[in-house]
């Protein structure tokens, strides 16, 4: 399940940011703020809004503000955390 979510997160990332890579090539450890991803604070929010749509969930404002979003793995963690919270 985690792997499935991770793959979907990476697909959204590739699609939204128009990255010339296959989602399968996106390593968990790739930093979010250097190439090829190169997020800034606004595109991060754009990406998270897209993840909400993709996973049909609403991510908590505070969860986004307090998350230590540094690499792809941390983005996956954010989505996983939100999906778990919505099940409880």
């Amino acid at each position: 399940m985690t792997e499935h979510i991770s793959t979907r997160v990476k697909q959204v990332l590739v699609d939204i940011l128009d990255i010339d890579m296959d989602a399968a090539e996106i390593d968990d450890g790739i930093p979010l703020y250097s190439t090829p991803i190169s997020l800034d604070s606004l595109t991060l929010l754009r990406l998270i809004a897209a993840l909400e749509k993709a996973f049909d969930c609403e991510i908590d404002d505070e969860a986004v503000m307090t998350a230590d979003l540094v690499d792809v793995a941390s983005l996956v963690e954010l989505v996983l955390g939100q999906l778990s919270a919505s099940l409880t």
Partner: protein
Amino acid sequence: MTGPATGAAPGPVTVPTHWYNVVAELAGYVAEERRPALQPGRHGIRPQLPLSIYRQSVSDEPFIEIPAAVRAEYERWRPTPLVRAHRLERLLGTPARIYYKCEAASPSGSHKLNSAIAQAYYYKKAGIRGLVTGTGAGQWGTALSMACAAYDLELTVYMVRCSYEQKPQRRVLMELNGARVLPSPSTTTEAGRSILAADPDCPGSLSVASSEAHEIAQEGDGIRYSAGSGDNHVLLHQTVIGQEAVAQMAALGEHADTVVAALGAGSNFAGIAMPFHRQSRLTGRPTRLVAVEPTSCPKLTRGVYAWDHHDALGNTPMSKMYTLGHTFIPSPIHAGGLRYHGAAPVISWMYREGLIDAVACGQHQVFEAGVTFARAEQLIPAPESAHAIAHVIDRAIRARETGTPETILFNLSGHGLMDLGSYDKYLNGLLESDAAAEAEVEQALSRLATAGV
């Protein structure tokens, strides 16, 4: 049809339950940004906006619900009065009917509180400890200081240096609300130090103050940047003004032929104008929307439509906007506020599409209008609002000369009780001429041309 003897519109008109999102209904408008090469701060990437606010700014819903807690705050002073300026009309001998929406009635003295209180609500909900911001003449800093006091948020305000010096009571008002106020450019940031190294006498600008505030927000733990104008969500929050005014005018049986408001980055103009734009579209009855800017900072009337940054150092994303260049610093002799190099992207697009008009007024004309209004209506307008009044008076005189009645509504965006120093200069003939400020605009335009913009 007139209102009661006081000129104030009869009730009941209630506080709107939703903000109006003009972006959702502008056919052909696409919000785009270009991302700068940004070095992450020591905390990595810091989303500056709560996700709730971001969703508002990109929503394709035309109406976005105002949270109950925010609406309850609005109800402390809203709806603001819609007032017929009978005495001004008589003074001008005009057949025009002049109304103003009195945002000066807010606790902070201006329309800025409409977004400040909403933003403070969302930032608090997002678990943020405090905010940092830039302010020009001080209206935004004042409003945000009140909102932060209401929501127990810390606040640091970088205030444009020349305004900090010209309006000391503004600093006191913000500090009274618990804010820390610093003149910008300051030595507390790398951005400020670099500006001062190049020009130790730099009078400051809103884009410089924004650069400093952004830098602090990137490095501070639990601190985020809050914008007072220009961004879509700020324009959205301000539409309570125009929505109320549409209802108030309808209750009087009036149709606004023209809606006028001053233009800094665009929050007060969008606030009153966008609901009337919607009404025109739905009813087919046109309403002319006129933005009034200072001749010392004329981005719509003389700027270029180009990609540009929102801050002086170029650390923020670029938007397509009418701009004088993000490094442009308005003359310190300009006492009338509205010191921002660019117009909000959506307003810029609407101007380019011919959906809004723009005019520019010099500061002597502005202060003359402010004094005329104050003496006629016993309400001292903020110099920013007086830009709108200057154009309203022009229109009213034209109506008298042509014998053509016109119904004009303008946004009295704030009172001028903290701007008496500037009025004092005007009354004593000490207000500097506009010529020097206009020379600086020429230089700014020349720099843009050289840069191939």
